[in-house]
């Protein structure tokens, strides 16, 4: 039996629309990559130039729709957790099939990649002859399969959920007792977890001080998984004020005043610009220093927000969890 909730149908329908546009962009990109000749004045080149605008618009549409849709997707999973026996939040629904976790990872990766593509496009448009056109569209050709994989996983996931099978709740999924990659990180000694978290943040700050885009990109790239894992392992327990409640999803629920949305927004903003700045520098974009600053602000806000919980807890109760 498959789930036919309106939310799932809505997500699938929007996936369908996105897929249509992404495929259109793919076909046009293919033609642009093969036939683009910036010195030619043929009608074909002229048509290609116009189509390049369509591709860029379509990709922008996909990105700006995927951002809120990602939140809606999590919300849908949260709703489904009401139907699935055992699930308490989106975490249980995500693990209801083997596709759930890869789907999540791919969704996040694709958000970054589409965002970076748009950043590169914006920079390229700043040059009179758009010198990166071919590279840009070639990059999209590589991006498209990832997008298709995401959609395929999403279909497999939604149609694979069996509402009669009891799934795990986040409490067991992210507990130290279970043997998974996540659990392995949760059970790491705290100094290692927090050391790498604050260490990478320090590295990002240093990259800003020294104005090093490549360093910033590397630090931020590593910062994404480390931030999420340390959130699961350490910080989330202080938000819930329960030592064994490790969960990256419950943060998004009303019980915790939706603070998770703010956290993830800061994290995305900071790390996205942290990575994009390397691209900007490579493409000779003059505004890269500003992007580096954006990245610092986003990272800082994230670190400050998640650090607030344990510190406030300690000040209030005089002990750590």
């Amino acid at each position, binding site marked *: 039996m498959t*789930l*036919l*909730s*309106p*939310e*799932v*149908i*809505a*997500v699938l*329908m*929007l996936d369908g*629309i996105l897929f249509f*546009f992404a495929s259109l962009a793919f076909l046009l990109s293919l033609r642009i990559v093969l036939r683009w000749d910036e010195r030619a004045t043929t009608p074909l080149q002229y048509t290609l130039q*116009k189509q390049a*605008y*369509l591709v860029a*618009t*379509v990709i922008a*549409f996909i990105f700006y*729709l995927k951002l*809120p*849709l990602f939140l*809606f997707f999590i*919300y849908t999973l949260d*709703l489904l957790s*009401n*139907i699935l*026996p055992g699930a308490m939040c989106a975490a249980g629904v995500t693990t209801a099939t083997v596709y759930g976790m890869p789907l999540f990872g791919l969704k996040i990766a694709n958000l970054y990649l589409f965002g970076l593509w748009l950043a590169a496009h914006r920079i390229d*448009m700043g040059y009179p002859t758009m010198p990166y056109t071919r590279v840009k569209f070639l990059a999209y050709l590589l991006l498209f399969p990832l997008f298709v994989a995401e959609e395929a996983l999403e279909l497999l996931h939604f149609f694979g959920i069996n*509402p009669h099978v009891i799934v795990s709740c986040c409490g067991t999924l992210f507990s130290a007792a279970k043997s998974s990659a996540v659990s392995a990180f949760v059970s790491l000694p705290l100094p290692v977890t927090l050391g790498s978290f604050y260490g990478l943040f320090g590295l990002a700050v240093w990259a800003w001080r020294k104005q090093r885009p490549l360093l910033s990109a590397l630090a931020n790239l590593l910062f994404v998984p480390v931030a999420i894992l340390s959130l699961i392992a350490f910080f989330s327990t202080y938000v819930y004020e329960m030592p064994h409640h490790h969960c990256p999803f419950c943060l998004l629920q009303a019980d915790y005043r939706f603070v998770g949305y703010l956290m993830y927004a800061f994290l995305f903003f900071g790390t996205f610009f942290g990575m994009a700045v390397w691209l900007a520098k490579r493409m000779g974009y003059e505004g890269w220093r500003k992007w580096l600053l954006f990245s610092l602000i986003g990272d800082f806000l994230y670190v400050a927000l998640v650090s607030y919980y344990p510190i406030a807890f300690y000040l209030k109760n005089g002990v750590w969890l």
Partner: protein
Amino acid sequence: MKNLFAFALGSLLRRGAKNLFIFVIFFLMVFVLASVFMVTHALKKEMFTTLSALPQITVQRIVAGRQTQIGVERVERIARILGVSQALPRVWGFYYFPRAGVNYSIVGLESFGQQYRADLQKAADLYVEKLAAEDVMIVGPGVKKSLAEHFYPESFLFVKPDGSLKKVRIAGVFKPQTVLESNDLILMENSLVREIFGMDESMATDIVVRVPNKEEIPTVARKIREIYPDTRVITREDLRISYQNVFDYKSGIFLALFIVAVFTFFIILYDKASGLSSEEKREIGILKALGWKIGDIMRVKFFEAAVISLTAYLLAVTTALAYVFMAQAPLLKHLFTGFSVLKPSFALSFSVDVGTLALIFFVTVPVYIAATLIPSWKAATLDADEVIR
């Protein structure tokens, strides 16, 4: 950006007739969708309130695939299962009143006994002496009204299975917390219910079981199944999930149909947006010759689409709120609750959540904007040099 936005607004107003047409249709679609989702959401909430008052476990006896009467002697055996704090037999059923064309739910009470629901307990306490002393009933407000309409203001004559009549006096009107379920409700003494339905003393309709520890419910349910293999054991959790599924299924089917309608509309929209008048073409040509980028024109087109779809969305959602919760969704409510005279007379209580609004948003606004993407691009890449010919 601000200037382009102002230009887009002006442009919408200048082409008022064409845009008004699109606006009205889009508004209507969002309105229908929003109303349906709001009604289902309110009903769902009502249903779950009702559900939370249900017993944790209900035991029914099944013979030849149908529910039948269950022996009251089983109550004691079930009560002895570890973790069960209470097991009670229930006597209840539906009574069809042909003249009014409605079904009443008759629920039996054990006077001086424990009830399985707090509200029933209250009613029983209140009328306990009367219920025990004579043949009386306590009815829901809907029942009281429909009986009065058919000239039974004081009492009613039930027809027993053997054809003989049984006169029962109305002793009071029942007002529990949710109206949806109790409007058609009739309460009377268990023995009286048995008499009207022609049931044996030793039989009950089903058995309800209370388990204080939530975690033990599945185990208790399994044990009952093992002791009495001819029973169907329903937990509240099962019911909640199946209700949820039924609602999801219903509104899912509706949404699927709606999406077909949406796409039809967007094909029309696409067509209308692509078919630029010569005046519009000239205007775009002029703008480009004056130094507008393709992106500037596409931005204006995007603003136009965003303004139309967002204002239509906001207006439609507000109107739907008024239609559903202030006007109580005339016409639409019956679609979801059936045409039975009694059942629908309940109030949709105000309940809207961000999720429902987000759902309505996601199936309409982005689709609208998607439908205008390609036409805007076509318009923005028109050759500008034609205007200087």
